[in-house]
């Protein structure tokens, strides 16, 4: 099978590249080992330098609305972190004091939303907090399974009964000017977060939960749908096992599912992510890139891979595939002519992009531009 471009890795970076290339008229395929880091997405891009209109357009055409408003976001543990760009249903505030009085609403029996930590964090910022638990019979079916009172399963129920939740919150609400809810709305019915906001006479803030991230999965569904509507082929659950490279040019890749049916392309993009998604693999002796055998920038001495303090910056997270200035990946010290590396497989080497998500998007667009000769 032959395509103009093949993207190895179907996460945020791979899909952004795929959408940009399909939009420009290319035929492309995305090969993805499984689901991806969007499932753990906080929904915000930290300190992205400029409100790149192109990014917002690309996302909004897929049905993912972003808003740019540099400030802070509320974390699930009740702290505040810097952020610049976020999904529409995730608020950014100029300062942490976003309200006077806050009602925090959780579901009885739900342990993945940290209402007491949130309350403590908000009170530290001078906001008065009240925590209330909703006891919904509709969630009882989930609770019958001891491990399934989790974000995604709750979100499926909420897509059906969100109006009831709005009613109950309206009853609970006294003089609070803000309500904090877990991010368990709008998994399949994407309009739910907006409709909840319209239904509650106070500012509604959706705070994160333990993964999987409902806004993240929604983003994944929408971007993938957009990519397929543009004619892209998304090979989910397949894995590139090796590549045919001759004279500095990648000719084709071999996948676990298609085996001897090689996938050929004029250009390739490597968007396989960091260690979690096995874009980078570590053993006691080295850190390597398993698909193309690319050059990886890492420290020889394993003692230098880690900071013994968990909270400190970890050197291993900066290791990544080496590229030239055009993001062309290096192999044996020389750039491959038609292979671009984007996203987390580069390691945290591009601080100017602010965050992993920012790096994923900006490098993907840059690689797509190179391929299109822009």
């Amino acid at each position, binding site marked *: 099978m032959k395509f103009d471009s093949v993207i190895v890795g179907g996460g945020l970076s791979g899909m952004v590249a795929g959408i940009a290339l399909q939009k420009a008229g290319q035929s492309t395929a995305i090969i993805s080992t499984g689901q991806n880091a969007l499932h753990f997405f906080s929904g915000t891009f930290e300190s992205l330098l400029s409100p790149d209109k192109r990014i917002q357009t690309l996302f909004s055409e897929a049905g993912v609305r972003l808003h740019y408003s540099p400030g802070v976001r509320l974390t699930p543990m009740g702290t505040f972190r810097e952020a610049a760009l976020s999904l529409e249903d995730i608020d950014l505030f100029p300062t942490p004091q976003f309200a006077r009085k806050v009602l925090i609403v959780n579901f009885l029996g739900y342990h993945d939303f940290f209402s007491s930590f949130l309350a403590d964090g908000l009170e530290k910022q001078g906001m008065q907090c009240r925590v209330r638990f909703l006891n919904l019979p509709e969630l009882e079916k989930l609770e019958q399974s001891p491990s399934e009172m989790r974000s995604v399963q709750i979100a499926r129920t909420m897509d059906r009964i969100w109006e009831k939740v709005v009613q109950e919150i309206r009853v609970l609400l006294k003089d609070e000017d803000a309500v904090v809810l877990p991010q368990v709305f709008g998994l399949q019915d994407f309009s739910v977060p907006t409709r909840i906001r319209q239904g509650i006479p106070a500012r509604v803030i959706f705070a994160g939960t*333990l993964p999987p991230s409902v806004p993240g999965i929604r983003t994944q569904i929408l971007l993938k749908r957009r990519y397929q509507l543009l004619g892209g082929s998304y090979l989910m659950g397949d894995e590139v096992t090796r590549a045919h490279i001759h004279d500095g040019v990648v000719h084709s890749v071999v996948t676990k599912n298609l085996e001897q049916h090689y996938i050929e392309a004029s250009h390739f993009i490597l968007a396989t992510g960091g260690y979690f998604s096995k874009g980078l693999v570590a053993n006691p002796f080295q850190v390597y890139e398993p698909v193309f055998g690319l050059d990886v920038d890492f420290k020889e001495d*394993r003692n230098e891979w880690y900071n013994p303090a968990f909270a400190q910056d970890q050197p*291993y997270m900066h290791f990544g595939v080496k590229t030239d200035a055009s993001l062309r990946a290096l192999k044996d010290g020389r750039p491959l002519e038609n292979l671009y590396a984007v996203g987390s497989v580069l390691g945290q080497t591009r601080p100017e992009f602010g965050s992993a998500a920012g790096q994923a998007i900006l490098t993907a667009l840059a690689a797509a531009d190179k391929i299109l000769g822009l």
Partner: protein
Amino acid sequence: MNANEFDVIIIGGGITGAGTQRDCAMRGLRTLLIERSDIATGATGRNHGLLHSGARYAVNDPESAEECIRENRILRRIAAHCVDETDGLFITLPEDDLAYQQTFVDACRRADINAEIIDPDLARRMEPSVNPELIGAVKVPDGSVDPFRLCAANMLDAKLHGGQVRLHTEVTGFIREGNTIKGVHTHNHQTGEDADYYAPVTVNACGIWGHHMAEMAGVKVGMFPAKGALLIFAHRVNNVVINRCRKPSNADILVPGDTVCIIGTTSTRIPFEECDDVAVTPDEVTLLVTEGAKLAPSLSSTRILRAYAGVRPLVSADDDPSGRNISRGIVCLDHETRDGLKGFITITGGKLMTYRLMAEIATDMVCRKLAVDKACETAVVPLPGSEEGSYEEVAKKIWEAPTMAQKAAASRMGSRARRIRTGNKRDDALICECEEVSVGEINAAIDRMDVSTLTDLRRRTRVGMGTCQGEFCACRAAGLLAKAHGCIERERADLEDFLQERWKGNFPIGWGDTLREAEYTQWVYKHVLGL
């Protein structure tokens, strides 16, 4: 009588201290146990968890061997819910001297250890993970014992017999009158409170820290801190303990324990200053994997969960730099006869699985000093949780059709699992999915087992001991602890400490899936949760 007065004060919340407190309490004494940190934080919780048959010591230390096999039989009865009756193999590899096997078996028989030479083929069938190259095998009644459970059960029984326990409380000095220790000054690290406690006898059961404790009391106990490093593999590779049939050496025991298996150990003398923070070096990791793979070749390609090290409280006998030749035997010192200091005794040496005997010896000495004449019953009275046999029977007895979490709870708590609130959806919800720990089990531990921190909770329930190393369960459990203790600020710091403690054991083996998990944990806690 004053509330701060006791018959005996025991310093040290390891297995020796807990066992001694139980024995003293069962003989009717009013007991207080003081521990500066949590239960089983020293050598107790930092070894293989091997229920020795004694075979390992049979050739070189017959006295220890005899102690081991006697205690082995006793623990199977009184600590059924802490013991896994796996049996053990002593294998001879092609590079080992097969002639040693006979010496070994003869020594075992002299010590009354049932050691049986079996066909290598049978050994391979008995334990499929064993190195298939083996040329000889001896089957012995080894097993594994969970040190946290054992320690907690002893302490619980002491409390059921009226004993009092102060955890996270450090002894800062002794109250002395002339040549007599009358009591201790303490400082509670969690509440910040200082308190004095009085008793006619104080027992120093601090393991390697007993060296300092003795110094503080003005006597000298020559101890030898021997560090032993171990690795935890992420699942059970073997279901039978595998040992090398040769003179004891590095990394020659592989023990299956609960959902994991453990290879160890090394033996290195370290300075006393390092005892509080022992780190595993890359060389030790390499040695453990290399030697371990000789016992079970699949260890060379099995995910490693953690590396950790403990410090054996050996008592110096000679200048052997490794400490291997020092007797693992029990040392009980009456400082009155030895040093002229009344009201103070030191119990040390020994092994995890001879703790009961150590406790009996120490308690006998305490009773003599207090002129109490009551026989020791710890060899016959089962520990709380161990009264009703195997966890399978217990689980089926308590619940007709036990769920996974109920089975797991029974395997951890034995018949005490009956006290977990269960059978309703709120209590049955899982906090730790790797190890199947429910809300009910966690609340039971918080209510009854002196839990202050997440790390304390881990020792009592296995929360955070599984594959994800607390990635998901730590913050869920922190929510429950915050609710129980009513202090969010403290819990936030506790959560950070817990993650740091997990990372300490992860980074020495930070590659492959362990590094993937670590990257994911970083992501979840720093970026998603914003800790």
